């Protein structure tokens, strides 16, 4: 019934604005269909209702498995160093030690690592959007001669996970060909290899393909050159797709571990995850409750990002089929 109502609303939404229209198209997958396996009518029967609530309880139990460890970490960060090792453990800390967070922040010098990671994320977003949006625009709108070959070369790399060439990549960045420059211990060593991201090109290209050709033709008639068309028409219209790329890039940079571990050996330039790994080593001598508090603080930004941008993230997952 409500499905019918939604259909009649469609034209008014369409006429609102083009960007909104494109935005909606990307959202198609996230719209819930009203009718599922079990019809609403069946659910009114007492037997079905009981079954339904049994399934509900089962799912709730699974939720405990899923959320329990996260809760355990958050409450562990508030325990004293003796309470955290106590058996049997306390469900909620007897005296919540909020000072743990302040102590952990100072002892581990987290300000430096948070700043480093934020700057890395910022650099990654700028670099990846610059590289991917220009390429996607060229492939989608400018279509230079031989674009099919170039496109194939880009998208082929989707089949090769970066860890498959981890070792040669490290040899590569520690002595770049011809210019003999080493990117070890520099952020560009982390950022540049990740800028070659075919997923971003794929997402942006498929979005650009959806922008009607009449628009770019009209802009051309008005005397816009390729660069103006890109900056004034394509980029402003593509904000939803750029948002998806941005959020994914920030989250991926925040979580990234293996490559920064290899590249950033100097503790001043390390990212948060690499620093946490070094703090976990037995010789770091960090009180365990402080370490757990550090883990909590490291997980707050991506969780906040998810809560704030749930729609975009879910849409992005549906678009790419993986990542996350």
């Amino acid at each position, binding site marked *: 019934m409500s499905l019918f109502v939604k259909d009649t609303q469609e034209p008014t939404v369409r006429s609102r604005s083009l960007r909104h229209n494109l935005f909606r198209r990307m959202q198609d997958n996230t719209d819930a269909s009203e009718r599922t396996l079990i019809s609403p009518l069946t659910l009114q029967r007492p037997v079905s209702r009981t079954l339904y609530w049994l399934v509900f309880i089962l799912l709730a139990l699974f939720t405990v498995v899923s959320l329990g460890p996260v809760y355990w970490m958050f409450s562990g960060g508030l325990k004293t160093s003796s309470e955290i090792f106590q058996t049997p453990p306390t469900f909620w800390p007897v005296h919540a030690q909020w000072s743990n967070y302040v102590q952990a922040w100072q002892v581990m010098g987290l300000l430096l690592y948070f700043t480093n990671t934020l700057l890395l994320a910022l650099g990654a977003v700028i670099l990846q959007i610059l590289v991917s949006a220009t390429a996607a625009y060229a492939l989608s709108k400018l279509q230079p001669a031989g674009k099919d070959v170039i496109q194939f070369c880009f998208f082929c790399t989707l089949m090769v996970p970066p860890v498959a060439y981890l070792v040669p990549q490290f040899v590569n960045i520690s002595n*770049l060909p011809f210019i003999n420059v080493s990117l070890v211990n520099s952020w560009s060593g982390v950022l540049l290899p990740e800028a070659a991201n075919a997923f971003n090109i794929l997402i942006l290209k498929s979005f650009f393909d959806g922008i009607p050709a009449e628009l770019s033709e009209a802009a051309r008639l008005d005397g816009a050159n390729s660069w103006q068309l890109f900056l004034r028409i394509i980029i402003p219209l593509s904000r939803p797709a750029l948002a998806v790329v941005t959020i994914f890039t920030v989250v991926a940079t925040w979580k990234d571990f293996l490559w920064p571990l290899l590249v950033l050996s100097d503790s001043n330039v390390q990212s948060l995850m690499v620093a946490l790994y070094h703090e976990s080593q037995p010789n770091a001598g960090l009180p365990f409750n402080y370490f757990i508090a550090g883990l909590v603080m490291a*997980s707050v930004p991506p969780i906040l990002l998810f809560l704030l941008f749930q729609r975009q993230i879910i849409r992005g997952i549906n678009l790419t089929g993986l990542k996350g």
Partner: protein
Amino acid sequence: MELHSHASVSVPAQDAPPLSQEGKEKSTLQRKNSRSRLQNIMRAIRRSWAGYLFLLPALATFLIFVWYPIVLGFVMSFQNVDMINPPAWVGWLNYQRVLSDPLFVIAWRNTFEFTIYALIFGYIIPVILALLINEMRHAKSFFRLAFYLPVMLPPIVTVFLWRWIYNPDAGLLNSLLALLHLPAGLWLENASTSLPSLVVVATWSAAGSTILIYLAALQGVSATLYEAAEIDGSNLWQRLWNITLPAIRPVMLLMLILQVISTMQVFVEPFTITSGGPQNSTMTILLLIYNYAFQQGEFGRASASGAILFLVLAVFSLIYMRITRNFMQGD
């Protein structure tokens, strides 16, 4: 057809001398054609310069940081590379040494074992959970959020959280078992339970994104099909087997290949939680490559095993590409 062949045969037979002239004309025409074709190509390239300029940043980064290291990896697998002396060619020696290394066999066996366990835990459960969540009329978005939350945790946080949970003395798992009067386990210290314990960690942190993908696929199943089937008197199982599962089968196939590809790259869990132990029971292929290169400084040997991993992953990727293409065509 017959008429055409007759004409083409009869024309050269009638006047022989002009043939050469005609041929000359033809060849100049051809030359003209080829010249104009060349000109066309030149014109196309000239017209495309803006496009190439926009492609330049991506082409440069892909060339230096993707295509070149891939080629370099295969080159290095035939060299002795220690990052100090200039590389020396050694033929198939790296491959021979890798293949005769007992750890290499153990690492592949563990990696496949990990993949199979990960499929047992992590393949069917997300499908069932997504099917159930999709039927919920209450708290649907809460469930989605609750299952997705572990995905948002950075892997480093996840692994250290779980190392603590598995701790034999103060860990949550043994404490809970004690509460239920069940025997405690040495989860990570025992060679027979260490690998499955890591699979639980990997599944816990990845199931949420799989569930989201299945939920999206389930929302694409048309409501009218269900209604029509119900009017025809089908029961719940018939609808599940004949409508729901066929509708999400392509996605299930894709997820199968994707999960195989991603679990074969398992690294962070064994690297941080168990360092490959105890008794190499959690030594995976990527961890072995890491150890070859960054512990023993044997970059050539690491590249040789990397090349083998590359080929194995490429096979699965090709299967994936085939399926996606069929999937797109079938759509």
